[in-house]
């Protein structure tokens, strides 16, 4: 009794499964056809022209070209008219997907062909696809891959490869040889290229890493990121940010309206930017920024630094050579420069600290503060105060409407001092050990000195004479302000 029941249950289960599997069949009219063909490759080139479906390219050690495809259509009649045309001769092998002309529109006729072509590893390939993704792996010789409105994936290649796309992403992982990639509107992601790289894009992001040779990247309106470039890097962008790191050679970056991040460059670096900030760290060679309205923040420059910007501030630290900075409307902050400093600011302040060489500053409407300058100091200012503290050379300050204050003249040698202003005060602190020949005059102010002056001529508006034994020039010229000489 029990055995009979079990058998009945088993039979029912089998029937159910069978019924479900039968009803799992599609409820629509669907046509599917498999295509397979092997073609002898006798040299030349393999050319694949495909559309409306996925194209997969693989390689093998054999000498034939294997074509496998799945033709699908929502209509059997259309599906049967789709053909895979193949040809093989001494010139190579061609594979082409041929679709029938469909006159009806807005109907429910649809079709697609997914194709896999396996080619001899050393056969040069030209593969074109439209409206489908393309996936290529293992090509061992120079080839060309082209796609339109579909993504491209390329991996494990060898030889000079050319990949172009429009309206689809491009991803390359591994090529032992030069690589050229062009895209119009899609992201480009490249890793591990053992050769030179040339990438051009219009409106998509470009992300590049691990390139053994030089890399040239051109984009219009998309971010660029480049890391671990074995040679030099040239990145040109119009409106996208650029981030570059660990460049063995030099770096040449151009963009506008976007941020530039640059770090760890072994050679020199040149950055052209406008309306975007520039941040740079550890540039072992010279560093040049032409930043129209860019804020610049740089540190660890091995060579000379030359920065020219319009409306952004400049912060510069640890420069091995000399620093030349121009900022129209932004402040300048510089510290730890081994060489000389040449700074020009129109409407921003200048603050320089620990400059090994001479300092030359031109400022129109901002304050100037210089501390610990190794050599001579020259400042030309118009409306801002000038403070100089700690100088190893001559001091020349020419101001118009701002005060001038000089102190910390180092050493026992002669540091000639020439300070001029018109509508503010002049203060200078002198070491007692050095003799000065004083020539001070002001029109509407007083002259006060803490150091004894042997005068040769004195009046309410002028004082000439010597401090100590004299000899070192001290010229203090004012028009409408006091002059104070104090003891250091």
């Amino acid at each position, binding site marked *: 009794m029990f055995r009979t029941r079990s058998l009945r249950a*088993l039979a029912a*289960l*089998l029937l159910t*499964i*069978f019924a*479900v*599997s039968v009803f*799992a*069949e*599609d409820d*629509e009219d*669907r046509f*599917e056809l498999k295509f397979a063909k092997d073609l002898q490759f006798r040299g030349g080139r393999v050319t694949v022209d495909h559309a*409306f*479906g*996925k194209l997969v390219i693989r390689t093998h050690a054999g000498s034939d070209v294997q074509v496998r495809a*799945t033709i*699908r*259509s*929502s209509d059997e009649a259309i599906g049967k008219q789709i053909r895979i045309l193949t040809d093989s001769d001494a010139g190579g092998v061609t594979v082409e997907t041929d679709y029938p002309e*469909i006159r*009806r*529109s*807005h*109907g*429910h*006729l*649809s*079709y*697609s062909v*997914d194709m896999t072509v396996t080619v001899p590893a050393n056969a040069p390939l030209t593969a074109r696809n439209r*409206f*489908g*993704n393309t996936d290529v792996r293992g090509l061992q010789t120079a080839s060309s891959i082209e796609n339109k*409105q*579909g993504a491209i994936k390329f991996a494990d290649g060898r030889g000079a490869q050319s990949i172009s796309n*429009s*309206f689809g992403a491009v991803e390359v992982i591994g090529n032992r040889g030069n690589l050229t990639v062009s895209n*119009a*509107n899609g992201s480009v992601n490249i890793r591990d290229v053992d050769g030179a790289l040339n990438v051009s894009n*219009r*409106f998509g992001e470009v992300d590049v890493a691990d390139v053994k040779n030089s890399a040239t990247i051109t984009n*219009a*309106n998309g971010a660029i990121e480049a890391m671990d470039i074995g040679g030099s890097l040239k990145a040109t962008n*119009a*409106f996208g*940010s650029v981030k570059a790191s660990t460049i063995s050679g030099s770096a040449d970056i151009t963009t*506008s*309206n*976007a*941020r530039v991040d640059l770090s760890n460059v072994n050679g020199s670096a040149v950055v052209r930017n406008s*309306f*975007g*900030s520039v941040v740079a760290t550890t540039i072992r060679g010279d560093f040049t920024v032409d930043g129209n*309205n*860019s*804020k610049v923040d740089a540190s660890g420059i091995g060579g000379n630094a030359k920065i020219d910007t319009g*409306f*952004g501030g400049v912060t510069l630290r640890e420069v091995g050579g000399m620093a030349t900075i121009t900022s129209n409307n932004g402040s300048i902050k510089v510290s730890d420069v081994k060489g000389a400093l040449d700074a020009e600011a129109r409407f921003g302040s200048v603050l320089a600290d620990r400059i090994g060489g001479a300092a030359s500053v031109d400022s129109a409407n901002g304050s100037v503060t210089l501390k610990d300058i190794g050599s001579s100091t020259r400042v030309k200012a118009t409306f801002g105060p000038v403070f100089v503290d700690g100088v190893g050379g001559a001091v020349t300050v020419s101001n118009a409407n701002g005060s001038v204050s000089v102190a910390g003249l180092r050493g026992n040698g002669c540091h000639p001092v020439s300070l001029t202003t018109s509508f503010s005060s002049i203060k200078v602190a002198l070491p007692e050990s050095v003799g000065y020949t004083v020539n001070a005059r002001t029109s509407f102010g007083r002259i006060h000195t803490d150091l004894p002056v042997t005068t040769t001529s004195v009046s309410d508006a002028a004082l000439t004479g010597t401090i100590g034994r004299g000899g070192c020039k001290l010229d203090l010229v004012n028009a409408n302000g006091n002059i104070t000489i104090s003891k250091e």
Partner: protein
Amino acid sequence: MTITCNQIDDLLFDGSPLAMETAARHAAECDACAQTLAAWNELSDTAQSLRTTWDNDTLWPRIERAIRAERKRPMRWTSRAAAAIFIIAALGAPLFYMLRVQTREAAFDRTIIRVSALDEVERTERDYTRAIRNLEKLTDAKLEDSESPLMVSYKEKLMLLDDAIAECEANIDHNRQNAHLRKQLLAMYSEKQQTLQDVLREDSDVSNP
């Protein structure tokens, strides 16, 4: 061991070799017990000779019991394996068939979408085009008036997108359910919407991003 004649019967009933040997030793010295032993041996011999033909009433029930026990014994492993293979094949074949059909259908769906899903796709496309039209109303003047390089770049991108959208739509006209074309069109609509939003956000102020 020394015994008495009273004990001879007990030894014979015992029947063990030691008991029989003791009884024989005593019978050698006692005539009466020797006769008893001889009679016992004769009886035993007769019983031995009758064993094979003895008709026993309990024999058949014993045989039946043995057969039932045999039936209850577990199946042999070969039988089990055969049964398992049969069940697996019976269950697995339809399952495999069903799975294969479903995989094939899923692959088909990935390339050619179903009519039922097409409505959803086209609704999404209509939403996009509506949003894009609204955005274009807001950005048109800005794009027309401005000749800044950034706006020129946006214009170029929008033109490029429009061309690609038109090409994609022309192909969709003849290949409506092609999943790649539909995905591509949606991606480009999305990109265009994003670009127009970027244009809208863009102002003339100078910024330091």
